[in-house]
């Protein structure tokens, strides 16, 4: 039943996206990263609607399928704001809503430099049953995810998450590094984490014809992420780490498909994580909304 519910909601999201596509044609050039951020903002006035799934294996518990929706809006050329809705299905257990997040990214310098910094600030209101693994921080380990949903959802967290995003694109390669610092607002210590990624389009020149399977539409890469402990026990002990190849397929119809199999790098990590995502960019969304309300 839980699986049916999950599949039904996924189909409903897909149907909404397909209908909406007809109203806002354009194209995205999205990065393949699922955890790591580069320094590129959402185009001003564009709304990116994204669906992601994470399937994870679980020792000492049941495997899970976590999923989330992202609504990413380019407020202007230096500020992107994003709203998340999270949920998960644990095999043999239940499907539950696990919380929401509100994320903001600020580009700090107006031109491109050798390294390009972006400041990331996010408020999270999620339960202990949240399993999307959008970031790994502190002493997050596989065992934390083994509780039944009925138990895990009792634990509720309000967190402030900050990241310093450093990124550079050179000769087609993007290299990005994120330093994460998270504070549970209920008097718990700062926790730290990292994510690094590298990616490159399969072709640097565009072909003259409009095409879906051209090599320039595919971006491949690798990302690695994990925890760095907390304020009182900084370091790698009792932390989990992952290595994940990533692939994005940017379609001319403004859809982006992402796929990323991830592998745990130590005994504290889930052994295998499979992520996939589907997103669509609605260029000119801000203008369309403004027109509805009588603006220009």
């Amino acid at each position, binding site marked *: 039943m839980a699986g049916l519910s999950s599949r039904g909601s996924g189909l409903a999201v897909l149907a909404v996206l397909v209908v909406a596509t007809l109203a806002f044609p354009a194209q995205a050039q999205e990065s393949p990263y699922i955890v790591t951020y580069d320094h590129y*903002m959402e185009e001003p006035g564009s709304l990116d609607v994204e669906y992601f799934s994470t399937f994870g294996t679980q020792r000492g518990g049941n495997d899970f399928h976590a999923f989330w929706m992202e609504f990413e809006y380019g407020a202007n050329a*230096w500020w992107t704001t994003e709203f998340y809705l999270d949920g998960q299905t644990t095999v043999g257990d239940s499907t539950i809503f696990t919380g929401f997040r509100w994320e903001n990214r600020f580009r700090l310098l107006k031109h491109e430099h050798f390294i390009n910094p972006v400041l990331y600030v996010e408020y999270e209101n999620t339960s202990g049953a949240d399993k999307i693994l959008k970031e790994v921080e502190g002493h997050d380990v596989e065992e934390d995810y083994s509780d039944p949903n009925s138990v895990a959802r009792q634990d509720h967290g309000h967190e402030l998450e900050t990241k310093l995003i450093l990124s550079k694109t050179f000769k087609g390669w993007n290299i990005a590094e994120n330093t994460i610092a998270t504070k549970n607002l209920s008097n718990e210590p700062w926790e730290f984490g990292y994510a690094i990624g590298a990616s490159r389009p399969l072709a640097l*020149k*565009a072909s*003259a014809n409009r095409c879906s399977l051209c090599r*320039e539409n595919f971006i491949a890469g690798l990302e690695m992420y994990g925890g760095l402990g907390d304020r009182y026990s900084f370091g790698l002990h009792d932390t989990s780490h992952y290595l994940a190849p990533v692939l994005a397929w940017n379609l001319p119809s403004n859809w982006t498909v992402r796929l990323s199999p991830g592998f745990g790098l130590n005994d504290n990590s889930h052994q295998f994580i499979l992520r996939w995502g589907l997103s669509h960019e609605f260029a000119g969304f801000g203008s369309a909304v403004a027109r509805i309300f009588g603006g220009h």
Partner: protein
Amino acid sequence: MLLMKITSLSISITLIVLCAGLLAGYSTAADANPYGELTKVPAKESARTNPLEHDPDAVAAGGKLYGLHCAECHGANGEGGKNKKKGPALRVSEIHQATPGTLFWLLTNGAVRRGMPVWSKLPEPQRWQIVTYVKSLAASPTPASGTR
């Protein structure tokens, strides 16, 4: 523990410095002239030549990329956006007279305060293809209104 303190201190100092840079960078009022950014491009960058200038496919490929990434703001035919918040027209003498290097630099770095994002996420050859197309647009007469 020492490593953690150094990391925390580094992050704090970096954030303070960057926030100060942010305030300094964005406090200046934007110029009224939408083509003013063209004059701010470093001379060395303006002097760069377009390696794809004679590529027979560059205009077509650039046109495709323009339609995908630029037309939303600058208009399908480079006639400019429909309201003042959108991008300026590209079939104008300012663009026609600008060097390929100038346009490439502006495309790469954007004009963030004016609302134009940086496009360095497009690989360098694709940016040169767009420059080739934009130069071809600027060289041709403005289409009659309503040709979008």
